[in-house]
């Protein structure tokens, strides 16, 4: 098994699915000749040609609506929003059509598309290039919102997303694109959409997160164990919506203490939904208030102040300590 980074893993998922199924097409701004601004689609145009790896004009609503049309005809478009910060241009297409055409047509039509977008901070980028607004999509009925956290699960989730009969928003934590490598088998691998994973077992506290924040969370968990003998159970949502609350409410019933971590602004963010589900399903087991360690309710600052904005290991540790001390 070759060790590859997330960019390569996503590329692998795309190329293998394109190989297997000629209904899979890739499109977006600069995804073809250039291979994508992050090189995620590198080489695809050479292998599959410009009809299947489509450099589109610069228009996000156009890309989404065009993809919807293709999907209605039976193709499986995987479109890219160059940065998630520009995906709001396509919000109405996704909310009003992609998410609804199955329902609107009483099951006659479907929109098996994937909308990929790099999201999140940590890469010293310009304004609009570091946001986390997955909650917009998560709150939209008819969509599924998936966020990987490693090369291997990125590859497997993307394969599942492409094969999913419904529209999937696939947010890629760009801070993890080249952050580390992992063994990714060449053979087919999928991961069920709608399922979370326990990535570290523990009994003292439950840490719930996803995507880019999994790194600081796991760092904090190691530190808790190594330095303080505290064993955190770490849950990676993988799918943000529809949310798999079985796993994390189960874990909370065991540990009684929960900290939720994400980069998105706190208020009305995914963490709120996690807390609500915990209250609904494991209320009697909660021994301390659930803490949210998140981005603040402001525009993510330009990169000199970004580190303080993002939920890093120290903030997580502090929240865990306070939760345990409660």
């Amino acid at each position, binding site marked *: 098994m070759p060790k590859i980074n997330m960019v390569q893993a996503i590329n692998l998922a795309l190329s293998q699915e394109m190989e297997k199924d000629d209904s899979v097409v890739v499109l977006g701004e600069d995804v073809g000749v250039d291979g994508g601004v992050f090189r995620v689609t590198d080489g695809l145009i050479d292998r599959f040609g410009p009809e299947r790896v489509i450099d589109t004009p610069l228009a996000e609503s*156009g890309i989404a*609506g*065009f993809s919807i*049309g293709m999907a*209605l005809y039976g193709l499986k478009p995987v479109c890219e929003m160059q940065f998630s910060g520009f995906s709001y241009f396509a919000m109405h297409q996704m909310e009003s059509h992609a998410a609804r055409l*199955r329902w*609107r*047509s*009483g099951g006659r039509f479907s929109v098996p598309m994937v909308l990929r977008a790099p999201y999140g901070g940590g890469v010293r980028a310009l304004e609009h290039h570091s946001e986390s607004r997955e909650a917009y999509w998560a709150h939209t009925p008819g969509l599924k919102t998936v966020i990987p956290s490693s090369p291997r699960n990125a590859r497997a989730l993307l394969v599942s997303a492409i094969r999913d009969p419904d529209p999937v928003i696939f947010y890629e934590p760009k801070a993890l694109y080249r952050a580390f490598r992992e063994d990714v088998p060449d053979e087919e691998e999928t991961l069920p959409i709608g399922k979370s994973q326990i990535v570290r077992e523990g009994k003292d506290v439950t840490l719930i997160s996803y995507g880019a924040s999994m790194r600081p969370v796991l760092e904090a968990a190691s530190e808790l164990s190594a330095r303080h003998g505290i064993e955190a159970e770490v849950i990676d949502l993988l799918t943000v919506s529809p949310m798999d609350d079985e796993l994390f409410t189960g874990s909370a019933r065991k540990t009684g203490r929960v900290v939720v971590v994400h980069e998105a602004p706190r208020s009305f963010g995914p963490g709120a939904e996690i807390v609500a589900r915990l209250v609904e399903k494991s209320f009697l087991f909660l021994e301390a208030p659930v803490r949210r360690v998140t981005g603040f309710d402001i525009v993510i600052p330009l990169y000199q102040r970004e580190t303080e904005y993002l939920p890093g290991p120290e903030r997580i540790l502090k929240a865990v300590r306070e939760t345990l001390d409660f």
Partner: protein
Amino acid sequence: MPRKAINLTCKVEYLSILDETGKLDKKLDPSIPDDLLLRLYRAMLLARRFDERMLVLQRQGKIGTFAPIKGQEAQVGAAAVLEPGDWLVPSFREMPSELWRGKSMESVLFTYGGYNEGGYIPEGINNLPVSIPVGSQTLHAVGLGYAMKYRGDKSVAMVFFGDGATSEGDFHEAMNFAAVFRTPTVFMCQNNHWAISVPRSRQSHSKTLAQKALAYDMPGIQLDGNDVLAVYAGAKEAVDRARSGGGPTLIELVTYRMSMHTTADDPKKYRSEKEVEEWEKRDPIVRFEKYLRGRNLLTDAGVEEMDEDVRNEVREAEERWLEQIGKGVDPLDMFDHAYAEMPPSLRAQKEELERELSEKKR
């Protein structure tokens, strides 16, 4: 290099074949077979009668808000050009075209009656469901067109939208994508002169809507939208071009919304009776009928019989619809078709409603 004129192709034509008195311009006759002419007439009449009937149903509170199509029946000339394998991408004022392509009147009643059942379109009929967000559906027709080309299918996607829709960014993006990818897409703009209360002249500063094609070096043409022969001829040219790989076309159908925007609207607030009367003289059905009578394809008796026939068809559809809704609806259906497979948390919500409803019954 001096200040010099750039040489651009700027041709935008206007086509009308039947004048308001039903007189044919022979040079332009698209030579439609007689039986098709009669089918077109009948389709227009059916649409008119159904529209009238829905207005009654709406006023009786049997259906909710709906968008009358009165005056825009000649659009069927465009739908008639399509093959079954082609796709129709309607907005909300294409009931005549949708029926032509096989959608049932019941399904229209379902939709306007507040039942989601109306969205279902039987397998084999390539109509998209009605799209309400103005202009947004244009992009779908471009994607469909791309996919047809990609699959090597010699099909065409025809998308309808209003004059108001040309102001939306999506219209522009769709035109641009279609031109860049040369998709087999026919953009059918029903310029009915009003977008609710906003007249065409204040929707865009341009003299015509057809000329918007110039921004994309795409063929654009303006048709007399109340002349079914012109609509047919213009659409045929565009569909043929698209089918043979010639790319997209923008067609502006110059027509008129003779009725209110929707039943929630009162056009007296913003337009004069006189304007409406002027356009009533150009009624597409009257004009076409005159022509067909002139050619002896229709007689007094024939018109009466056809009208009777069409009214029966409407009544029967209404009865079938009433029967179907008479069986009642299961509110739990609202969870159907949200996803191909219902996610667990949604199932839990459905069960929650189920419990609530059963408690309520008790």
